[in-house]
């Protein structure tokens, strides 16, 4: 347990200490929120869908958590490159503890980022259906964070270079974001697209957030939670297995 704690704490310290990074990593979602939120607002309104900012704010929260958590896992690449990973790999602690500590640390950081961007959304004019919806939304923030931090750890255990990292960002993380329904409703899409979006893990996270915050559901509370829980178990197991197999 102490090993899990100290590695969790490390991730948190690294986050809190890099103030520039906090600002930088919140910049992108803020840009989406302001540029797209206000930019597409009139079109969305004309289409009879209501206030776009209300619609996309939960999606932007989901996006922030996605990027932050996947990145924390893949940041293992840097630990591999700068050598610190070796220190933990030869430690007399089961690898699974190391993996869990890292993953939970990354997930915690992602949850903080998600919380900060939610505050931004509120400042920008987003209003949840009820203030009590915010703690409930946090349940989904946590689920998204764990699912994708575990996915990040799995990927981070496998890829060894920057090319691999770019590949993952462009062909996995960005599609996960764009096909999640964070920016547009997942209704009346072409059939193929519907299938793809249904296979997107983040779609369930965004749906959960949106449902809890503004009462717009697609899959429903139980379905969202079930899918995310199963994925969390799958990715954590995969991550633990892949991490335990790392050889240098």
């Amino acid at each position, binding site marked *: 347990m102490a090993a899990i704690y*100290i590695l969790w704490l490390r991730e948190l310290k690294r986050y809190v200490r*890099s103030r520039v990074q906090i600002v930088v990593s919140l910049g992108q979602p803020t840009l989406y929120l302001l540029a797209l939120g206000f930019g597409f607002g009139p079109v969305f309104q004309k289409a009879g869908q209501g206030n776009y900012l209300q619609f996309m704010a939960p999606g932007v929260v989901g996006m922030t958590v996605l990027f932050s958590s996947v990145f924390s896992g893949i940041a293992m690449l840097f630990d591999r490159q700068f*050598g610190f990973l070796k*220190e933990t790999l030869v430690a007399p602690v089961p690898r699974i503890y190391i993996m869990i500590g890292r993953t939970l640390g990354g997930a915690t950081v992602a949850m903080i980022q998600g919380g900060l961007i939610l505050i931004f959304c509120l400042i920008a004019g987003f209003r949840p259906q009820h203030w009590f919806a915010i703690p409930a939304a946090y349940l989904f923030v946590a689920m998204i964070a764990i699912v994708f931090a575990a996915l990040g750890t799995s990927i981070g255990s496998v890829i060894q270079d920057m090319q691999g990292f770019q590949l993952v960002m462009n062909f996995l993380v960005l599609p996960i974001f764009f096909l999640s329904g964070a920016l547009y409703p997942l209704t009346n899409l072409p059939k193929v697209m519907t299938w793809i979006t249904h296979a997107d893990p983040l779609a369930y996270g965004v749906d959960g957030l949106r449902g809890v915050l503004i009462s717009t559901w697609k899959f429903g509370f139980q379905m969202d939670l079930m899918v995310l829980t199963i994925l969390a178990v799958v990715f954590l197991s995969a991550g633990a297995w892949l991490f335990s197999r790392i*050889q240098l």
Partner: protein
Amino acid sequence: MIRVDNLSKTFDKFTAVKGISFEVGQGEIFAFLGPNGAGKTTTIKMLTTLLKPTSGTVELDGLDPWKKQNEARQRFGIVFQDPSLDAEQTAYENMELHGVLYHVPRKVRTIRIEQLLKTFELWERKDDYVKTFSGGMKRRLEIARGFLHTPKILFLDEPTLGLDPQSRNQLWTHVKNLNAAEKTTVFLTTHYMDEADRVAHRIAIMDHGTIVAQGTSAQLKEQTGKESLEGAFLALTGTSLRDEAASSKDQMRQFAAAFRGNRGGR
């Protein structure tokens, strides 16, 4: 303390280590020498549970490090060829993290961290981030960290690479003192023959994946009829240059550094 029998490692088609055998006794300082690409680091990785041997057996303090990983890991410390510190944490935090991972009880931890940081002349800088340290200071910190959990064996893989003569001299003095005080078995690799000559009780010379000679420095000199260990080393391993395959890794480092810079310097 270390027993290696017929150890081999094959990567795809390339055999890096070809059935080597040796023993290191308790409290001994054992130097493992060889040109670049001889298989030294691969051997250390197999001894320290980072790489699975293709065949052969390893025993550390009577344990098979691949079967009893955590028990074996508790018994050794290692200073890698490349840095393995967390540059974004302070010297003290690096020590603390190591102590926790190696199950050093809090009280012992506090005392030992202070004692080791003082020995390695880092106590005044304990609350500074490692990224502000010079190469020599980082090395000293890594070695101090290696001793923290009172390992029975300490592996040092080219610990003095890139250090100035002062730092190297001081570093070996500390290692020798701690070896004497704590009876730690030391297994080291280096390219500096004078260092091996000075600190090692026994030396093995490796080339092309096999051990070509082992014994005390005097024995090796006698065997080859040379006056210096360097002369003996060259007589045993030849004078041709060896290829190094590190360029892709160096490229990667630069890329990673640039990437981190973009994100605002993690």
